């Protein structure tokens, strides 16, 4: 057991007890409880049957691991050694090594302590074999989706999600239980509230080898939806929405309740394109005609 305090020479206390065979003079190795005999020379106390022996007169102890009795034991003798093994001060942890708030001690090699200063706020400690201490502070990778906002439509002519944080790599929107006021209404999307002829979309199966022009004033997300049953679902993906040098693309998949037969569905896989290069900070949802009676619009940011 190591004892002591930082700044004070620590010691390791050992109690070694053995009933050696008669005629023994050299005491070493494991005792009857499998404790090794280890001591710092001059700091040991040796007892024979409870009587403290005199160093130099009754025994010699010079190696740190062996004690030699002058008089050999006789059968039944109990030898006990109370040893104090000094831990060199150079091997002890000094409070002076903690040079600043947050300082950590970490080995730079076996038995070689090193100091690692505290990292920047929000960083985390990670293994780094290339660093002296084998550790470094790093910005945590934050993957996954973060729910930015949830908005419910309620007889809304439009749902405008504005001031979208520009700190994500892409956006996802989940649109649940959306239904129009007018039977057959189609949910549509504009970016940055741009009402110009800046859009075009292709949907599944509409493969074309001819160049397309931008003729739409919005992107159609849904097929016509029933105005009474709201079990449809649409998801929308808008990658790299913060870049200000390229046109933008969207993909969306929608299942909607058929406006005539509400047990039937219509689906739409839509690829939308937008011919403006500005970063997107607004999403504007509306129906092809009439209000959005209901629906939840969940905006997620993805890193």
């Amino acid at each position, binding site marked *: 057991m190591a004892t002591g305090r930082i700044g004070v020479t620590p010691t390791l206390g050992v109690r070694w007890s053995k009933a050696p065979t008669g005629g023994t003079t050299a005491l070493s190795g494991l005792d009857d409880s499998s404790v090794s005999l280890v001591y710092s020379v001059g700091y040991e106390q040796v007892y024979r049957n409870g009587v403290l022996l005199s160093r130099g007169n009754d025994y010699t102890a010079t190696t740190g691991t062996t004690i030699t009795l002058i008089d050999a034991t006789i059968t039944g003798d109990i030898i006990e050694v109370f040893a104090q093994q000094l831990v060199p001060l150079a091997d002890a942890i000094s409070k002076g090594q903690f040079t600043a708030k947050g300082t950590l001690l970490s080995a730079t090699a076996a038995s070689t302590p090193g100091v690692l200063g505290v990292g920047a706020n929000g960083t985390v400690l990670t293994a780094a074999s290339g660093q002296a201490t084998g550790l470094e502070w790093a910005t945590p990778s934050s993957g996954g989706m973060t729910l*930015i*906002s949830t*908005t419910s*439509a*309620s*007889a*809304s*002519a*439009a*749902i*405008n*999600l*504005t*001031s*979208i*944080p520009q700190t994500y790599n892409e956006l996802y929107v989940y649109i649940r239980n959306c239904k129009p006021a007018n039977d*057959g209404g*189609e949910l*549509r999307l504009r970016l940055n509230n741009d*009402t110009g002829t800046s859009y075009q979309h292709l949907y599944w199966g509409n493969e074309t080898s001819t160049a397309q022009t931008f003729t739409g*004033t*919005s992107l159609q997300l849904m097929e016509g939806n029933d105005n009474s049953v709201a079990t449809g679902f649409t998801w929308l993906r808008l990658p790299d929405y913060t870049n200000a040098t390229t046109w933008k693309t969207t993909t969306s998949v929608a299942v909607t309740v058929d406006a005539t037969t509400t047990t039937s569905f219509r689906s739409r896989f839509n690829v939308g394109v937008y011919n403006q290069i500005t970063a997107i900070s607004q999403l504007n949802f*509306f129906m*092809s*005609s*009439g*209000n959005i009676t209901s629906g939840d619009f969940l*905006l997620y940011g993805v890193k």
Partner: protein
Amino acid sequence: MTTTKPQIKIVNTTTGEEIVRDANPEEIAQIELDATNAAAKQAEATAKAAQRRAILDHLKITEEEARILLGGN
């Protein structure tokens, strides 16, 4: 008093602030334009469907038979 103007719900996704207000004249004009465009698109789709029906009737074949004939799904 019950408003008859379209309601615009605006959510500031940074602050969480949510407001609902009447559509302004410009927005109302856009809503009407969108509705007109949607109606025109619907009328065009309806006209094309009628035209297709007329062709099928003229050929005395069903839509299913037309799909088989043209190799579509």
